[in-house]
């Protein structure tokens, strides 16, 4: 009883919700990437690896050039480059997209560790100075609103960007011509092709976009929330984002709701000092939530009809 009471008390604090929003944004960016990629018909489980690659190159660039914006750009491009590999393998060579995704995740984990050793030797990779981190930004006046002000308007700059991207992706996918075409390609590429739409270009674009978003999430993790690179620091967040995408039924807003739930679990764990229960149990919370979600609490959700199926022109 006291545990539940503690958690309930925690839920009334603005600190918790502030942390929860930041944690969910870290999931939201790759989840948005997943939504775009899979809506175009390419299964993407490689957000984990793209994020990790982004995190690593972000830190490397920041340490080298002492410019956080340039570093963020490098992280985004690095994520996009990993996505390009996935795109070429699964679109051009029509390989199994799950296998390609797994390969990229393993490759990213190995490559980053290897490069850390290679570049920095045995000693630590080093820490980024406070002035070279993605800054927190308080919105004047709005941040003075009680509770809401702290939760929504005293956040890292990436949080604002992510929330803007959330709205953007939702609108683009469901209100614009390019969105209609992306969804058409993911549902019935043959129909899209006969309507004069270039299936391959749409898919390349969508997969690469998912990498750019994941790279941004990597930057946020490594040079926003943290200030260094640690091997495997993404800690499964790319997979949780994948679960959030499914939970959200392949829609940006739905995925965001799911990210909020997972982010809340993470924030509760991070603020566990007032809760009298093993922190190991609490650390499992986000993952347990993922399993519960995947066992179908949300009911059946239908992926895009051609999700995961390589497009072969002329074949039925």
């Amino acid at each position, binding site marked *: 009883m006291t545990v539940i009471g503690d958690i309930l008390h925690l839920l009334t604090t603005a600190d918790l919700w502030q942390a929860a929003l930041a944690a969910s944004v870290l999931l939201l960016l790759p989840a948005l990437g997943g939504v775009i990629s899979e809506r175009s018909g390419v299964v993407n489980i490689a957000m984990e690896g793209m994020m990790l690659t982004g995190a690593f190159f972000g830190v490397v660039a920041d340490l080298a050039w002492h410019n956080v914006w340039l570093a963020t750009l490098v992280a985004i491009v690095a994520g996009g480059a990993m996505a390009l590999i996935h795109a070429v393998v699964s679109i051009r060579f029509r390989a199994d997209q799950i296998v390609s995704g797994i390969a990229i995740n393993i490759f990213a984990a190995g490559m980053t560790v290897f490069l850390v050793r290679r570049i920095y030797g045995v000693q630590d990779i080093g820490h980024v100075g406070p002035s070279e981190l993605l800054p927190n930004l308080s919105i004047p006046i709005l941040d003075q609103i009680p509770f809401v002000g702290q939760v929504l308007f005293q956040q890292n700059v990436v949080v604002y960007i992510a929330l803007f991207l959330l709205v953007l992706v939702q609108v683009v996918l469901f*209100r*614009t*011509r*390019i*969105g*209609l*075409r992306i*969804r*058409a390609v993911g*549902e*019935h590429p*043959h*129909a*899209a*092709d*006969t*309507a*004069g*739409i270039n299936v391959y270009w749409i898919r390349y674009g969508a997969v690469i976009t998912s990498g750019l978003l994941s790279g941004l999430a990597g930057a946020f993790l490594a040079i926003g929330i943290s200030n260094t690179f640690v091997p495997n620091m993404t800690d499964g967040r790319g997979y949780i984002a994948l679960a959030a995408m499914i939970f959200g039924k392949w829609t940006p807003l739905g995925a965001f709701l799911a990210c909020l739930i997972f982010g809340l679990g993470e924030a509760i764990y991070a603020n566990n000092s007032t809760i009298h229960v093993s922190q190991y149990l609490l650390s499992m919370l986000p993952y347990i939530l993922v399993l519960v979600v995947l066992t179908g609490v949300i009911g059946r959700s239908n992926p895009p*009809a051609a999700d995961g199926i390589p497009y072969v022109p*002329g074949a*039925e």
Partner: protein
Amino acid sequence: MRGITKAWPGVIANNGVNLTVRAGEVHALVGENGAGKSTLMNILYGLIHPDAGEILINGTHARITGARGAIAHGIGMVHQHFMLIPVFSVGENVMLGREPVTGGAFYDHARARKEIEALTQRYGLALDPDARTGDLPVGLQQRVEIVKVLYRGANILILDEPTGVLTPQESIELFGVLRDLVKAGKTIIFISHKLREVLEISDRITVMRRGKVVGHLVTKETNEQEIATLMVGREVLLRVEKKPAEPGPVTFRVENLTASSDRGVPALRGVSFELRQGEILGIAGVEGNGQSELVEVLAGTRRATGGRVLLGDRDVTAFDARMERDSGIAHIPEDRRGTGLVLAYSIADNLVLGRQRAPAFSWHGMLLRTSAIKAWAKRLVKEFDIRAGGIDVLARTLSGGNQQKIIVAREMGNRPRVLLAAQPTRGVDIGAIEFIHRRLVAERDEGTAVLLVSAELEEIRSLSDRIAVFYEGRIVSIEPADTPEERLGLLMTGGGSGTRTGAA
């Protein structure tokens, strides 16, 4: 199209084909599966590039590369398998690729709706632009395809086997639409192997066989027999030859059977009939009135919610598919590729499916006797004229007609007591239809009780000894074999009054 030639490794799909279509006519292109019709049309539509030959449109050369090029030349194709996205609205499907936009990028719903309304009014094609496409009946989905092609400004419409998926009523509506389109100045190329339809709708006919044009005909001056002979290359029996039935004792009895559809709504609402040895009972009806569910219940793949099925005096109502099969009920399922065959298996493996536990084919139901299976397969392939490179060829690679013959061979191979034949000739060519019809009658003459379900009224009328008409999950009437088509059509749509009500 002049001198079109296209060779694939091993086959010449089109060999010096000439096709002349006049503006404002309905031109039928007929031929058996594999005759090269689709290749020719894909060349015209720019999806395949010919090795030789040229295309002229209104007297000028046209180089067509890809679907976009075809559209630019005013050629539109209504594909046999619809190029529609079920989860999109009708409007979105029609507009796709040529969407109206506002503000540079936003899909313009209002204008899409207006454009479609203008098109549908002009050609008399009623459609709701906001309906979800996947919820529409097949006939309306096809209409969406036609509107889609018209929206792209097509003057020449290619329709690839358009009636294959339609009910008779929907086909009649389609023909009305096609006539209106011709009146509006459109030209139509109609691909089919249903000769009655071709005679009904077309002005001129081009017949293809094995990649060559074997005849240019004027519809008014020809008949079914002439076209069929050209198509197949020999005299074809269009009428089924059969003696009057000599029905034996009742062997299969269905009493007040009820069952639900996949969506959980009642599909069978009390069906009763008797089936005698040595007779064919035809089930006529518009598709979706419970015929599919009836066959599934009888074959043991769907649970009955009430009533009884008796084989002889044995109650087989609750039998599963294996028990039904073992007790002598054979089943030709309506979905050839989904339930009838394992496409990734060889012909031999498909032919033994369902019998693999029999002592003749396995030791103690464990190890397969491959030589016995091979011998069995070879016998059936020969007896049922399955044309393939050998018994180890994968079922996937065969034509529809040969695939269907595998199923027919397997199901008839062991003299069943009852044969459930659902859509036994759907999507197969004339030669195979002729063959399967002959075998069904032969099976009847051997004393098998045959239940024939078909969406083709002509097939029902020519094969059946009695005809049960299905409407909304009930048998509304059991009619003699020579009942006029008009009367059956009326009963099938809920009109008329039955002579013997099947519902208890």
